[in-house]
């Protein structure tokens, strides 16, 4: 009877552990940006951090790398995190990255619910014809990338509010904080997806601009070319825009804003 109790307890634990695991989607990237000055170019890179808040060892399993990444494919590899300990991708699972030349990729993970995940985007610089080492990945700071735990169903609108760095309008006497926005979309489907991107203004919900793009299967892309600028707003209402993304395949999306006036840099970082 005692043995049966132990067996049942063990089965319950195992079952509970299985039930507690959930999908986690982490966006990672590596890219060279525009020239900062005669000596440096921007360089974007990333890392992800994990913390096991539980009392027992947790296992984070890599299920898949998007954009054809991972040669050799490390899918199935497991990151073991001791209780109440942290780990980072760059140090502990550096092979979980794409190597296809894609600037962005998605890591689909299976992680226990009590394992915290933080996704980091670093803004740095790389030297042009300068003595090495000339790459400073952290020179201009860190921004936070979203961590996704589910996909938006096909056809469901994904609404991103206040996708502006500040007010911007076609009325030059108003306060202006010009910025552009990039819309990043992951098509998790097995076939190419059509994605509709709409930029709308908060002041009256009118459409500012829209674009339809085709995204290959299992691919994350960044769509640029949007100004975060409102037009002919009524006297009241914020001069901010919001972004609506609709994809005909399972997907997720997010929006980043960059100033038109300066090298991207962060002097503040906020986590939840």
């Amino acid at each position, binding site marked *: 009877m005692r043995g049966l109790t132990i067996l049942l307890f063990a089965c319950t634990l195992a079952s509970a552990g299985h039930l507690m695991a959930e999908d986690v989607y982490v966006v990672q990237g*590596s*890219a*060279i940006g525009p020239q900062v*000055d*005669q*000596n*440096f170019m921007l*360089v974007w*890179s990333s890392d992800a951090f994990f913390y096991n808040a539980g009392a027992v060892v947790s296992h984070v399993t890599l299920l898949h790398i998007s954009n*054809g990444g991972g*040669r*050799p494919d490390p899918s199935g590899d497991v990151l073991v995190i001791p209780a109440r300990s942290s780990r*980072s991708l*760059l*140090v502990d699972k*550096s*092979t979980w*990255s*794409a*190597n*296809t*030349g894609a600037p962005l990729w998605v890591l689909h993970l299976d992680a226990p619910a009590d394992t915290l995940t933080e996704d980091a985007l670093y803004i740095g*610089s*790389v030297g*042009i*014809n*300068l*003595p*090495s*080492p*000339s*790459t*400073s*990945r952290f*020179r201009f700071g860190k921004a936070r990338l979203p961590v996704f735990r589910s996909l938006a169903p096909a056809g469901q609108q994904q609404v991103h509010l206040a996708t502006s760095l500040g007010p911007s309008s076609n009325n030059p006497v108003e306060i202006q904080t010009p910025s552009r926005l990039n819309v990043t979309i992951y098509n998790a489907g097995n076939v190419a997806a059509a994605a509709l991107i709409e930029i709308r203004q908060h002041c009256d919900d009118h459409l500012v601009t829209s674009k339809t793009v085709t995204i290959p299967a299992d691919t994350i892309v960044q769509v640029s070319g949007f100004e975060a600028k409102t037009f002919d707003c009524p006297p009241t209402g914020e001069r901010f825009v919001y972004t609506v993304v609709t994809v005909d395949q399972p997907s997720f999306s997010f929006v980043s804003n960059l100033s038109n006036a300066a090298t991207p840099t962060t002097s503040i970082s906020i986590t939840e």
Partner: protein
Amino acid sequence: MTLARIENAHLSSPLYYALKRLLVKPAAAATPPLSTAADDGAVVRAAGQSRLFIPAPLLTGETPANVTDGWVLTDNQDAEPTVIALDRTVNQVTYTNTITAAMTYEPHTFTANIFAHSSSSVPPANFKHTELPIPADVNGNPEYNNTGDPLLAANVYGSGVWPKRVYCSGMLFSATGDTGTFYLPSAIGLWHSDDGGQAWSAPSGVAWQNGGGLITDKPSIAVSYHSGTLGYVYVSWTVRDTRSGQGANSQLWVSRSKDGGATFEQPVVVTWDNVNDSALAVDSNTGTVYIVWVNFRFGDIRVAQSIGTSPALAFGAHSIVSSGGLVTFVAGGLRAPTVPMARYNWIANRLMVMWHGVNSQTQGIDIFYSFYPCTSECNTYGWQTVPEAQDKTRDQFQPGFDYDRYGDVVASFYSRRDDSSNILYYEYVTKFHADGTSVTGVNDVRVSWQCSPGVTDCAADPTYSNGNTVDGNFVGDYEDAWIWTYPDGDKLVSSFIRIARDLAKIGDVYVGRTTP
């Protein structure tokens, strides 16, 4: 070619005697003076050079040695390897030393330093690792934090100034990861070794800068094998003006040492413009010194030669080797600027330059070979440029090269031809005649290596990085190659970086040998 000419050429003794036996062909014409930009457009179009028409063997490679295996710093990032080999006799026993030097990075800092790795095994193995020393300041602390941009050269002969002495030129500076680097003092140093690269001297000072936005950069070195100047050491470098909008104030300098690097003469300026990445070569027939460099303002590769026989070193007006196609990065964001390499081929009597850049036919990145004097399709200055390697489908970059006993050119380089994503690379070796034409029946050879268990060959992945990576997406701005007659035959020995993603290793120095 005459017996006198090979007396001081850069050949080991077996090769020397082999050439002596082969000296039945008429001598080739000497290299004419460069046609320069100041020559009112005069065009030098030399006749084709005669060659020793001996059937060339196929290229065959061997598994390269991981130089840093078993070393305490084996997991540190390495970059920018250079290589040389020479014979050395100790107690009547002759050893062939293979020496490579590269930068090794210290994780989580902006520190990187040159380490030399020397092997007396054939094939090379069991390397001895030595950090090149940094001089101390008045308080006994290192005067600089970094050394970098190593290039090796040697007086491989048993006569001349400091026979058998090996030299390594490099930068001394203090990197901060941002513009602070340019406002700290920097210098060009020259280290030497008299025991085949195992023990190294403190550096001789070749040039200094106090900072203020000016930094000494990219030294190059050549040792003369001309009978009248055998063992003279020539070092070139750039003083880069990094201040905003001041790039065109950069200067290219050369200095000469007649005493084994102990002292250097007053340096001479070659050009004053937005320039860098020089390469030196010495004509072993005449002692003429050539310097090749990149001019970023005009987007071309230039060359000048030393003037006459005056005791003071001086350089004349420039010629243009090739225009356009310079690059800074290749696919995937890998830093790989166009950096020319130069050799003087005394057998074919040609000045030779190789680099990588944009192929205007394919818009891809390819390796280029240019030679003077040309045979056809010459540019205004008498140079002829040919894209080399037998595959032009994907990126090929950072050629190192030398010439074999027949005057043919053998080059090593990184090639992405096996990866449809144009990211992963292998080390390849190609061979061609000194006039740029292909050698019949010879195919490019891939240098294959051991990787993860059960896998005999896997590509290097420059995108791979981990927590120890300091300079991501970087394998250095060049690799290097050298031909030497080892006890087991003539070999092109090339030194290159492999980033082994399968082994979670971020950039080790490898030395591979290919039979030309």
